[in-house]
């Protein structure tokens, strides 16, 4: 009985982990996808070996947890960069509905982990 619970517990735990990994994977593919985030058009992502052929209009996305300890601030930057900087050339992904709210959450998760 006890063994069973443990197995069940670790099963649930690994499922949870797997779904978290999926979320990051989703966020990453949204960030890479030219028809979605296309963040690579402007940002290098040095911490992700799959991030190739990136542009340099924006700063490299590194040390994000350090630079954006507040997740809400990071999400706000992605939702509408022109709030912090009216001259920003970064597209307002939330305001102009380039990404859905759910997609912005996924991208934020991915970027926060960089």
């Amino acid at each position, binding site marked *: 009985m006890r063994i069973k619970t443990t197995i069940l517990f670790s099963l649930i735990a690994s499922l949870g982990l797997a779904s978290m990994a999926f979320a990051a994977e989703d966020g990453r593919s949204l960030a890479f996808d030219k028809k979605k985030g296309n963040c*690579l*058009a*402007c940002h290098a992502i040095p911490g992700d070996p799959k991030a190739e*052929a*990136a*542009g*340099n*209009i924006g700063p490299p996305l590194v040390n994000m947890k350090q630079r954006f300890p507040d997740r809400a601030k990071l999400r706000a930057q992605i939702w509408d960069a*022109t709030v912090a900087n009216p*001259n920003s*050339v970064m*597209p*307002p992904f939330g305001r*102009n*509905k*380039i990404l859905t709210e759910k997609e912005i959450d996924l991208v934020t998760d991915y970027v926060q982990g960089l």
Partner: protein
Amino acid sequence: MKQKLITILALLLLGASFSVYASPAKDRAALIKYYKKILPDIKFHDYIYGALAMNPDAKAQYDDIMSFPPYGIDLDKGKSMWETPFKNGKKFSSCFKHGGKNVAGNYPYFDNTAGHVVTFENAINACLKKNGEAELEYGGKQMGLLTAYARSLSDGMKVNVKVKGKAALAAYEKGKKYYYKRNGQLNFSCASCHVQSAGKFIRSDQLSMMIGQASHWPEFRGGTKITTLQDRFKQCQKNMRAKPLKANSEDYNNLEYFVTYMSNGLPMQTPVFRK
């Protein structure tokens, strides 16, 4: 006393007209200064090469291609269109000064009688109409091939667009406003990329500066795909997820007027290869 008043009045008027007419020249000078600052290694006369001026390897490849251009046959088609007489026996050359040599750099110009901008393509169609021939489709392949050859007769001429008078200035200002206005889902203006981000990479494309963009049209993209300047406006607007306008629309003609004015002083070369 009276004379003094008149002198003052005349000076005032002169001052007023100066401040109106000086503005395109000032815009251009300010922009040249800006590009010099952000791209100090690029010389003014190399602005015609756009992004190629920023990348010696790409420029070397371009020079190779241009020494034996893949669009030779297409250009010959344009040449034969230019030289084939109309039904009335006249030719295109009869519609232009110097038979069409060293004239293309004066376009677009503002026609005060008509009250709008006249592009080189407009002048081609006016010539066809005057001679009882069917006009060509703006942005179409025939117009592209014909103007690729017709403009090559002005190779080496300096772009020489004039903005004189209130109505001309208003058209210039409209073009300028369009250039700097953000539009489309991605919220870009033309200036977001070609002014603010000139020299930077967007993915693997390096962004050209606006000055020098208008001196070499049409282009053969990818070697043989004829592309007019206004086709290029459309392509950029599609990338911005903005709604492209029609070729020869008033907005595009004003935009072309503004953008070409900014290339003043640079030598024409048509056609050229771009990837």
